[in-house]
């Protein structure tokens, strides 16, 4: 096994384990830790595929932002029981069929493409490429996302403080 393969499997295990913990676990803190592991795994994959800038952004925004935000929410609400996933009820077992079939479809449809995707190491000027893209062809999207982020933040504040005002 080459180094790249080893690192791929480590990252894959991290992501899958974290995701499964999030979906299955009962404890709120364990779920948050699982999510953290998953997000770090994603950052690792970004690095693996030659996008160090995005990897860093991922760590900052998610691990440093969203994850902390979720922890804060948990602390604010003073709760540690997320409730069991309702795997016992018949409706939920039926519901589980939906993701299973989605997986089969996605895998089937994409695998001919995926098999040709080898391991590619990142190029050093990837940030330069992204800068050119964001301020060039993708400028409108970039601006839109900025506006969206602003609206989201204002909305979040508005939703939370509404109660006090009324």
């Amino acid at each position, binding site marked *: 096994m080459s180094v790249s393969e080893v690192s791929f499997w480590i990252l894959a295990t991290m992501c899958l384990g974290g995701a499964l913990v*999030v979906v299955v676990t009962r404890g709120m803190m364990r779920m948050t830790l699982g999510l953290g592991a998953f997000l770090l795994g994603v950052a690792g994959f970004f690095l693996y*595929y*030659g996008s160090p800038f995005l990897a860093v952004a991922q760590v900052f925004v998610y691990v440093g932002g969203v994850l902390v935000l979720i922890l804060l929410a948990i602390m604010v609400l003073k709760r540690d029981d997320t409730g069991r996933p309702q795997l016992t009820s018949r409706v939920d077992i039926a519901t589980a069929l939906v993701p299973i079939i989605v997986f089969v479809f996605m*895998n089937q449809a994409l695998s001919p493409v995926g*098999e040709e995707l080898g391991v*590619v190491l990142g190029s050093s000027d990837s940030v330069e490429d992204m800068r050119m893209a964001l301020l060039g062809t993708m400028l409108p999207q*970039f601006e839109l996302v900025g506006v969206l982020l602003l609206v989201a933040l204002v909305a979040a504040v508005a939703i939370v403080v509404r109660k006090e005002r009324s």
Partner: protein
Amino acid sequence: MSIVTLTSLLFSIGLFGVLTRRDLIAVLASVEIMLGAANIQLIAFAAARGEYGSGQSLALIVLVIAAAEAAVGLALLVALARRSGRTQVEELMEVEG
């Protein structure tokens, strides 16, 4: 296991969480998993095609949207918790038309 299978699997696990978790915080976390899976896929394709610019930019945009979604979702969750003291999905059943 190819990267495609991995991301498909991650996406499906996230979807399963969204459909079955009863706690809204967990549902939000599951959504993050789905978005993360999509992002890995994007970057993987970008790397394979050598077009880092557009691929990374798209991933960055998804990242930002995910952050915004998490912020608004958690705000809603807090508001909901204030109203009923609970953050279970059942609280949303009142919206039933």
